[in-house]
Each structure stands twice: as C-alpha cells, then as structure tokens.
C-alpha cells in the first residue's frame, strides 16, 4: 500500500467515522432499554397489584366513623385496615372485599386526629370515609359504637397540635370524602373558616414508619399565618392542628401543609357549633378551572379557594345546570398571590359550579353547601376523569342520595351508573345518564332508593366528566358530600 492509497484509506475511514457516527448518534440514537422481567405481566405470577388509601377523617368525642371499601373489579381483593391517632398505629384488620361489592368497616373516630390506613392487594378498590357527630353534648354517652381508642384529654391532638380542641358543646353532622391514594409532600386544603362558631382543624397523618416533619401555613384572604415551627409526627401517628389557635375570625382559612421530612396526608375538618360537620381530603395538586357538581342541598353555596401561586389571578364563577352554563359571578374578580377567597352564590336547583380563572391558572377549590335538614357538606375539586367510583356519604340505607355529574367538554358524555352494595351490584340494571356539554345532570330520581349506602361506579363512554355524591338523612340533621375517586384506566371494569 503506497502513501496515496493509505491516504485514501484514511479519508474513507474519517468519512465513515464522521458520517456513521453522526447517523448513529443523531439518527439511530440509543436503543430503548429492554423491558424488565415481568414488565408486561398482567395477571400472572409477576402481577402484584396493591395500593393504599389514607383517610385522615378526624373525629371527636362520641363520633363514629366508617370507611367504605368498594371493589369494582372481577377478583376478590384483600384489604388491611389499620387506625392511627397520636397514640400510634393500631393492629390491622385483614378482610376480603369480594368482587363487585363493597364493605364497610367501623373505625375509631373518637379523637380529632383519628385516621385510617387501608392497604389492598390483588386488585383495586376505592375507599371513602364517613364520620358522624351524634349531636350529643360533650361528655354525654356516645350513641355510636364504642371507640377502641381512649378519648382525648387536654389537647386533642398528638405531637404538634397547636391549638386546644375547645370542642363545642354540641357537635352534630356528617362528614364524608374519599380517602387519598398516596402520601405526598404538599397538600392544599381550601375549605376552612375560623369565624365565630366555626372550628377548623387540619388532620395530618404519617402512615410511614419514620417520623415526618411538616409546616402548616394558614392562608386567609388578606394574610398568611404560619403555624409556629415544624411539627413532627412520629411514624404511624396522626395529629390535628387547630386553625383557630393561629387564625381567628377569617371567613376563609385555607391551609397548605408542606412536609420537609417524609411524606404525609392531610385533610380538613370543619365544625359549626350551630350544627354541621365538613370533612375534606386535601389535594396534592392544583386544578385548572375546577368544576364541582352538587345536589340535594338547600341552595346556598360557598366556594372557598386558594391561589398559592406567586401571582394574582382574575376569575369568575359559572353555574352549570342541566340547560348549560350560566354566569354566576363576572369574570373580573381578582385574588392576590398566595391568598384565599370564598365566593358565595345561591344556586337554583342541582348543578355544578365552575371557577374560571384567566390564563388557565390553577387553584385548589372546594364547594361548601348546606343540607336541607341542616348540616354542612363540602368537597374539594378534582380534575375530570373518564371513570369514577363514588363512595356513598350516607350513614344509613334510608338516606336520600344523589349523584351529580358535570361535563365541561364540548361533546355530550353518556355515563353509566352502577350501584355496588355489600351483596354485589344492584339487581336493577345500570342507569345511563347523558350529560350535555357544559352542563350538570343529577342521577335519576329513585336511583339507589333504599340502598343509599351503595357505592356508585360511573363510567363514561366518551369524554371526561366530574362526579360527586350527596346524602341527606331523613331522620336527623345530616348532610354530606363526597367526591368520587378516578378509576385508573387498567381497573375500569369492562362493559
């Protein structure tokens, strides 16, 4: 090989390296990594579906609590239910929730910070809580089942409780909401008020073995009050923070829980000393243009919301009825950065409220309503989904329940509602409801008549929608609203 041919070879090599290298690097690129063993396994030996629900439902002296666990799937699911308070984690109860059925488990609710952890294995279940204040004076015998945990003395919370429980003389009402399906570092709790006659609590549970440390900021309309210092919760315990201790006299006291160490779950518990209990799970993420359906209420609606961002927003409120969207509050309202606000409006008939923020700003919002027999109900806003499982907020099968559906999409959605009772799916055929665009429609009258405790599986055949379930007691002042939980796509029952 002479120099010339050697040079030619080098030129070819350089060209190959440069061209080939460019093609490999920029056209081919690194190959997608191989699938891990068992990555595609569904239903086989490698399939180990499991999850957990965290229910920081709270409670009070003489209160009773239930968690309802609903299995919409085709296989039985094993669940493990354990209660916790500031005294730690109680021994777990293991039970099986049969396919297409629900189970109700009594849980201790005798303490403000009472919380429940539900682990499930082998399928997917939804869980929600119902806590009930009996309406008896403090100290009077509780009408409900005996609480296995001692009643609180002195301060009602665990480590870090910043306020005295100062329970009102009479606590009456029902609070309900779905449990949270995961712990996190940030929780937004938009529904809180510390005006006279309102007691507001933040219930924080730490379901892990290691201690968690968090801060609570109470965001009122014009100020932010941080609860003093970091609050530490040992592993397997929960605490209740009394907002009135730090912020008194504000119509809106939203709370932001930020965990510096570990992960927690938070909910708000509001008690009206005139009678009324509201219980809302916190939301870990903000929602744009939140829509919250409602039904069975007395007409008055309050929309507390929180803007935790660093810039103010302009917003308005629309009302979505069966006949479409109506302006309820001009879209020129303003709220400052890191501030909260409560908007009040009177709705005529069932419908959804929609908080419309300019620029797609995201907020944490709730809807607070009053039952026709008294008692308050509220629920937080979630993003629309294609399938929901609604756990009944009723305390008795004789209660009156309604499912409210809202569709903010441009096309109508047809939603199939299936009741799921302890004994399995309702004998009656599933109900199909069509929700027009920008509308809210309640479930047909008589749906769940006599089976108010039944959970409802709501599945859309098209676009996403929002759903809540309300319950009104026929015998006492008890009204509750509970949002549904979105069903993960792989667990949406076929057909």
């Amino acid at each position, binding site marked *: 090989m002479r120099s010339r041919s050697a040079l030619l070879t080098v030129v070819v090599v350089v060209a190959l390296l440069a061209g080939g290298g460019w093609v490999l690097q920029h056209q081919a690129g690194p190959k997608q990594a191989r699938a*891990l063993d068992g990555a595609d396994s569904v239903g086989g030996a490698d399939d180990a579906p499991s999850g957990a629900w965290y229910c920081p439902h709270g409670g009070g002296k003489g209160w009773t609590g239930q968690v309802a666990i609903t299995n919409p799937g085709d296989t039985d699911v094993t669940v493990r239910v354990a209660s916790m308070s500031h005294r730690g984690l109680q021994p777990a109860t293991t039970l099986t929730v049969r396919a297409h059925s629900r189970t109700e488990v009594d849980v201790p609710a005798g303490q403000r910070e009472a919380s429940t952890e539900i682990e499930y294995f082998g399928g997917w279940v939804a869980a929600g809580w119902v806590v009930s204040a009996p309406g008896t004076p403090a100290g009077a015998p509780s009408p409900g089942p005996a609480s296995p945990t001692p009643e609180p003395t002195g301060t009602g919370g665990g480590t870090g409780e910043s306020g005295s429980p100062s329970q009102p003389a009479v606590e009456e009402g029902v609070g309900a909401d779905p449990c949270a399906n995961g712990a996190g570092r940030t929780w937004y709790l938009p529904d809180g008020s510390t005006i006279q006659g309102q007691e507001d609590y933040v219930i924080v549970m730490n379901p892990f073995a290691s201690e968690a440390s968090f801060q609570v900021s109470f965001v009122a309309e014009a100020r932010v009050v941080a609860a003093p210092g970091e609050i530490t919760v040992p592993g397997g315990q929960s605490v209740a923070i009394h907002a009135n201790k730090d912020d008194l006299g504000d119509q809106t006291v939203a709370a932001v829980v930020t965990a510096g160490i570990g992960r927690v779950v938070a909910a708000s518990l509001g008690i009206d000393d005139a009678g009324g209990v509201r219980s809302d799970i916190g939301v870990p993420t903000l929602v744009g243009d939140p829509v919250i359906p409602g039904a069975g209420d007395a007409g008055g609606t309050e929309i507390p919301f929180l803007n935790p961002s660093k810039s103010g927003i302009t917003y308005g409120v629309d009302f979505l009825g069966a006949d479409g969207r109506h302006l309820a509050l001009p879209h020129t309202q303003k709220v400052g950065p890191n501030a909260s606000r409560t908007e009040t409006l009177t709705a005529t008939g069932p419908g959804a409220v929609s908080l419309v923020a300019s620029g797609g700003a995201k907020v944490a919002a709730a809807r607070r309503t009053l039952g026709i027999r008294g008692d308050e109900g509220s629920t937080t806003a979630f993003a629309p989904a294609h399938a929901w499982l609604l756990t009944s907020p009723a305390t008795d099968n004789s209660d009156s329940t309604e499912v409210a559906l809202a569709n903010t999409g441009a096309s109508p959605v047809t939603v199939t509602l299936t009741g799921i009772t302890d004994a399995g799916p309702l004998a009656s055929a599933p109900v199909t409801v069509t929700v027009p665009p920008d509308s809210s429609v309640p479930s047909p009258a008589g749906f769940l008549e006599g089976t108010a405790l039944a959970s409802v599986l709501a599945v859309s055949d098209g676009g996403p929608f929002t759903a809540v379930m309300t319950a009104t007691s026929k015998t006492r002042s008890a009204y509750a609203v509970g949002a549904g939980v979105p069903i993960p796509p792989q667990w949406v029952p076929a057909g």
Partner: protein
Amino acid sequence: MAHASTTTAQPDATETRRKEPSVLVVLVAHDGLPWLRECLRSLSRQTHPRLGIVAVDNASDDGSRDLLEQALGPDRVIALPRNAGLPGAVQAGLKVDAAERADYLLILHDDTALDPEAVARMVEAAERVDGVGVVGPKVLDWEDPRVLREVGQSTDGFGYPYSPLEEDEIDHGQYDRVREVLFVSSAAMLVSRAAWKRAGVPDERLDPYLEDLDFCWRARLAGFRVLMSPQAKARHRSAAIRGERRDGVRVDRQRLYAERASLAAMLKNYGLLTLLWILPLYTVQALGKTVVWAVTRRFEEAWQVVVALLWNVAHLPGTIRRRIRAQAVRSVPDRAVRRYMAPAGLRLRRWADTAGALFRRTEEPALDEERPVDEQEELVLPTLGARTMSLARAHPVATAWAAFAVLAFLAYRPLWGHAPLTGGALPSFPAAPTGFFHEFLSGYRTTVLGGADPASPALGMLGLTSAVTFASTAVAQKLLLMALPPLAARAMYRLVLRRTNERIPAVAAGAVYGLSATVLWALSEGRIAALAALVVLPSLVDRLERGFSPNRPGRPLRFLVDAGLVLAVGLAFFPGVILAFALFAVACLLVPSRRGEARGVGIVAGAVVVGLALAFPMVLASFGGPGPALHSTAGRADFASLVRLSPGPATGSWSVAWFVPVAALVSFTLADRERRRTGLRLLLVSVAGVTLAWLSAAGYLSAPLSNPTAYLAAAAVADCALIGLGVTAAIEMGRRAFGYRQLAGIGVSALVAGGLVLQAVEAATGGWAIGTNQESPSWPLVASADPGSDFRVLWLGGPSGDPFPAPGGDAITEGSASGITLRYTVTDRNGASALDTGRGFTGDGYRYLERSLSQILSGNTTHGGALLGPLGVEFLVAGDGDLPREARLRLDAQVDMDLVPTSGLVIYRNERVYPQAGATSQRDFAAASGSTDLLPVATLPKFDGSTLPPVAGGFQGDSPGGVALLARQFDGAWRLRSGGHDLLPARSFGWATRFRAPPGPVQITYAGQGTRDLEVALLAALWLAALWITRKPVRR
C-alpha cells in the same frame, strides 16, 4: 563517594634500604588448566625479591595439579581431596611453615595473571600507607587488557556489591590513583600478616561468592585499611562467573550466593544498633524484590532470595559465633566503614550526574576567551534545549520514567495519605487480605445475592498484593491504582518496541497510552479491573501479533502458555477483555500476514484454551448458571467522546484527547511496507472498537457482547500502537526525499508531543473522581444504619453510562417498565465490592429483583418494600437528580418505603426488609415464601422473627419454629442443622433458600465446600504449572 584516595608517604632513603617484606603467594587452583600456565608464568616474572609460593589444588581433575607440581615442585603443592573453596584453600595454605614467617599473604586465583611489578607495587602501597591490611591490584580483562574489570569495590547498605565501573569501561588512567575502598577481589588480594592474624581467615561458608567482602569488612572493623593500587595490575579471567570451570560456580545461582553472603556479612559485621534499623529495611526490600520477581515470573531469582534468607536462618549459630569474633577485634565504629559504602539511590544519582554534566557544559565556553575567534565559532556548544533533547534521545526510557515520577507526584496527590479512598466506581476492599482469600476459597458467594458462582482467581492476586503491602488492603488499593497506569504504558512500550525495535517510538506510544482518555478515565473512577485489562491487552496483542507473524515464535509451548496466562489474568479481572482479544484476532484473520495464518489461528485457539483452563471454575459456572461478567454498562453512548477514547467524563477526556485518533490516522499513512499489514489491522481494530463501544453503550449489542470499556480499550491499544509505528516512520524519514511523509511525520510528532504535554498538564492539575471523602455526605446515613447487621442497597438511576454515586459502582443493567427506564445495581451495605471482581450479577435472584422493580415502576403496586424485603434490600439510593421524575413519583407512592431526609442522595428506607438469614413463626411467610408469585409477598407484614447472625461457614441462631429464610440465591448444598439432623433446603420466593426450622438452636451450613476445595487445588496446580512453564530465565 565510595572510594577514597589515600595519601602516600614520600619514600626516603632509609626505607629503600630497608629489608624487603616477604610475601607468600597462596595460589588456589581448581580445574583452571587453561589459565594456570599463564598465571604461573606471571608469578615467575615478579620483580618483588622475597616471594614464596604455595599452591593449593582444590581437587582438580584437569591436570592442574600435575602442572603445579611440575612448576613449583611437589613440596609446594597442597592437594586437597575435595574442593574446599577459596576460603578452605587459603586456610590450608596458611598451615605451611612459610606462612608463619611471611609478612604478607597474596591470595591468588588460578585464572589471574599478574603484571611483573604487581606484587612489588602492592607491597609498596601496603608499606607506605599507615594501617593498611589489604591491597588489591587494578584488575583488567584477561583477553583485552584495555578493559577494566575491577578497581576496588563497594556495597550499598545492604551489602550488595557496587562497582564504579561502567560495563566494558576502557582503562585510560581514570582510576590511576591509590584508592581506599571497602573491599577488593580475592582474585589477587595482598593481606598483611597483622590483618589476617587479627581479622581471621575468609569465611569458608561463603564460598564461592563475596567471601572477599566479608573478609575485607572484618579487616576494616579491626582497623585496617583496604586499598586498590593502580600501579599493580592483574588480568583476571573470571572463569567461575563465566561458567568456564567444569564444576565451578553455577552461574544461574549467583543471586543466591550474593544474597546469602551479603546478609551474612551484615549480620556479622554491623553493630547492634545499626542492625536494629537496617535489618527491617533489608527485610522490606528483600520482600519487595521477591514479590517483584515473582510477579514478573522470575521465580528462580525470587526463590534464590528466599533460600538465601533461609540459609542465613539455618546458619545463624555459626554466624553468631563468627560475629562475636569479628566484633571482638572491632576498633572502628560502623560509620567509619559506611564511609566506603555506596549511598542509597546511587543509580538515580548517577543518571542525574550524567544529565547534570551535559548541562554544566554551558559554563565552559568562558574558557573560549583565550582561544582564537575562529576556533570559538567552531566550538559553539548545543543549546540547553538541544541538550535536553539529546539527553532524552540517549535515555528515552529513563527520561520517560523521570517525567512520570514528576507527573505522578502531582497527579496522584489525591491518593497520598492514610485516609481510605472512595469515589468513582472504586470497589471497596475488605478490611484485611484474608477477606480476599476467604471469598476466593469459599464454596458459596458471600456477596450481593449470593449463589454458588465461584470467585475469580483475581481475588487470589488481590489478596497476595494486599498481603505483601503490609497486610493492608488500603495500601494495596492505592498501590494498584498508582502502579497500573504506568504498567499499562510499559506494556504498550513493549508492544511497540517489539514491532519497531525503536525505543523512542515505543516510549511515545507508551506515554500516549498511559495518558489516553481511556486510562485516565479508568484511573479517575478507580476502575482497578479495567486498568488491569488495559495493562493486559497490549501484552495480549503483542503475543497475538507474534503468533500471526511469519516468524515462528521460539519455544512454542512456552509461548502458548504464556499467551494463555496473560489472557487468564485479564479474564480474572475483567472478563470482557476476551472481547477485545477477539477483535484483534478477527483483525488478524481479515488482514493476515503473508505466512502464519494457520499457526496464528492455532496459537489463538491454544491461548484461549489455556486461558479458559486457568479460569475453569468461572467457565464451568457459566454453563450452569451465573457466569463471568462479560458485559459492562460503563460508558456513555457519545460517539465523539468514544472516538477520542473517552468512555465518560473524566480528567483527560477533553478536546485535546482528539490528538490520539488524529495522530493514529496520520500514522497509518506513514506505515512502510514492512508494517503496512500491522497498520491495517490496527486501523481496523480502532474503527471497529469505537463503533462497537458505541453500539454497546447504546444498547444495540446483546448483553454478553456489550462492553464499551473492552472495545474502547482495544481501540486505544490500536491507536497507540499505530502512533508508535508513525513515530518510527517519522524517525526514519531522514533517509528519504522530502515530501508528504516528512510533513506527516512532523505532524505526528508535533501532535504527539503537544498532546502529551497537554494531557500531562491536565492529569497533573485535574481532579479525580476518587480521593478521600468522595462519598456523598448523606451516605453515612446508610453506611451507619443498623450496626452489626447485614443488608443490601438497591441503587437506581436514569439511563447513562456513569457509575452510581460512590460507593454504588456500576449498574448491573438497564431496563424499562411502563416507559420508565432505569439503570440499577444491588450491593452489600458497603457498596460495590472488590470481592465481585470478574463476577457477574445474574441468576434467579436478579430476575426476582427485576420483577419487583417492574411492579414498582409500573405503578401496579405500592408495596415495593415488601417485594424487596426478601432480597434483604433495606435502602434504595439514587443520586440527586439522577432518578427520572416518573420513577421518583412511583417510589414516593410506595407505602412501605420511607423517604429519608437527605441532600445529595435520594434515599428510601424499606420498612419490610428481612434479615439475610432469619427464622420466623409467621405463617404468612411460610406460605408466601413457598410461592413464586409476587402478590403473596406484597401482602406480607413486617418480619417478626429472629435473625441468624453469620458465623464461620454459615449462620447460627435460635429459631422460634416455623421457617428459616436465607436471602441467597438457591443452592441445594445448604443445610439446616437442628437437633443433630440435617434438613434439606427448598426454594423460597422462586430464587432464595428456605428451610423448615424446628424451634430451638439452628445452624445453616454449606455442604458444597469440598467441591470448591478441589477446584481451588486444581486451579492452583494449573497456575503453578503455567507460571513454571513461562518462568523467565535468571539474569546474568
């Protein structure tokens, strides 16, 4: 200096009139007939007037005795019945009556011929200088009297002889002055009567080597001077050293004789205080020397050192007796003797003196002022730079080592000090060398997920290295990191030297290789195994090229075994080296030599067979399950980076590193006809190596073929060898007409020189991933957790070719689930371990780990802790920002894993971890462990049982009754002993080991150790045989 001149008294009339001293010559003969006649003739011509001769024949059978008797008469010949050596012969000679009357004794070898004036001059020197006990002549070569052979000798502090003479130094009077020295040769040694009476006779045990050192040392202790008189000349045949006597000194045992005599002389002649400090130093250097020789396969020399030590131990009583005698006549302190010894580092100083002399000449032109102007112009001396180049050209290897010493001093600064090294991908070493040996001998794997795959022979080597570095594994670790890069450079030097026979190109190639981005990357990240591969690969290529060359290698069996041995060393440390070897072999087949393909194929096949045989347990294991780790995940899929030989970010991987491939390409165009095929092969390997490295890193090659480091190492070797060829061609350019080749040659030289300088500066000033305290500040949260208990750590990160944060080491593999791609590895609590050198991470346990990870990443489960519990994984660790966001969310969702508050690392602690060995009565565990399904595992509650702590050979503790779980990959050789019965194991969780465990004390033992013992014995025999076959001959 070792030699001192002595002043001589001026002769006066009184002295010249004085009666001449008598000299008795003791001529020691032993089969020296070829030279004896000349010796006798020289004696007969001596001018000294009073000379007596007695010959002692040491049982010669070549006619020497007859000649002596003819020449001297039978009365003056003492015939010894057996060879008593020189000391014995001298002692016999001293028994004659004349010895009692002689003033001087002249010990003379039968292969020494004296000048006529020699005796007279030696006597004259002895008489004129006060206190002289011993005088020796200037010794010249027997055949060429212009060549100096001895002008008096010295030793270093350890008694090793040192001569000021260069090899074949010509005598032009440079040593013509009376010199006071430590000792003179017994070839012709004049000893005063007082000296032998006081110091005694030569030690007969030290025959046949350096008995003269011991004798002269004793004479000096007794207060006598030892002189070399240049006026006295002698020619010496050195027949014994040349091996010319029929049953004389065994030439190949000179080291033994020298070592034993040196040590014996030290023990006898040094004072106690001196011995106290010099003996430990001697021991260290002897040990180091032995190790170096053993490592370089100079076994016979290493063995001779050991035998010499043993000889001295065995002869200690005799040495002590002689010591008492020697010390009894001591009249001077040790320091008076040590003045005549050579200082430490003499060789280095001599080289520096040579260099200094060259530079000092710059001052000499001052003398030119006295010269005519024309002459001054003619005598203009080279510039300093030119002299530097001249020095470097004259001593390229020494210059390279000196440059390396300076560079190493700067670049290795993070490695100095006593603090242990961490960082990069550096594997942790066990606390003691026994850790390596235990693992090597163990029948089961004690690391990570266990199993029965055997340990690599590399552990034996690491253990030995640790043992000889003061039994400190930390020192061994640093030593390896510091020594392997220069060794790699040296291997490249030898490869190119053998191809070109030119030292400068070989040095250049070695330096480029040592400073290549690949080597610096491996050093920076503490990749000892990769560095070992980088050392081995040039040696392998050298053997491969020789195998395929037209010339048949001499001693084919030795060559084959040697190649196999080198391959086995590479396989032991870095099994992927076989991929690089295969790449070169394929290149040799594609571009064959004119002759030798068939032989080359045979040699490659033979070498592979030998190499595999020397690692046969690993090979056998690979057929039945877990095998050696051919593949590696280290290295980024960055083509431009790989072309410049950098697998990842590290010091030296900057843009300057482009000089290597560029210079290699230009060098290829310079290859002449002789080396063109070699050049083409190297070019092929270079291009293929880089491409395969990228394909490996990018995940296109199957796991057993995927090893970016191995392919890049091949490319680095090829590039540097090409550069060697190019520099050779550049040096040879001067003989050809000016043209492209000259320009290209200049270009290559400039590229290499500039690149080397910049790479060296970068290496000297850049930072290394390894060093002291290179771990994340958060790591102690894991390292110090649960003291005394064993647990495992699962390391996670996004897809990349980088190691995990220290001490996580490299990923086992990459994989994806639900669109989330992760790389992961699992380690023991101390992180990546050197005990896993050369071993893979495969088996059912790793499959179980993947299944569990899939469930976690897919979001299907929130009980990842329970799934990882059987693996003993207590912590999940990821680098801050290294974990994909989706993966982080999935992990956050796990209900049984606590997020530990840290910075720098993301750490989750598993609430549901089990002990590595434990027993429990929980029924859920008995049921779930019997299944391969994950769901029952996910439902398991927290482990509530007893831990079975590890003991020698297994685990032991109390069982509550139920099931005993061993978090090690299943092996049927495990047994649970309870109540005197051995219970057989069953698989747990589809991969681990479990037993039915009755209540009470239980012991889990391994019953398969015997097989491993046999394997190790056979392996040891094979290695010893291979080492013996490939041993290097003794240097003369």
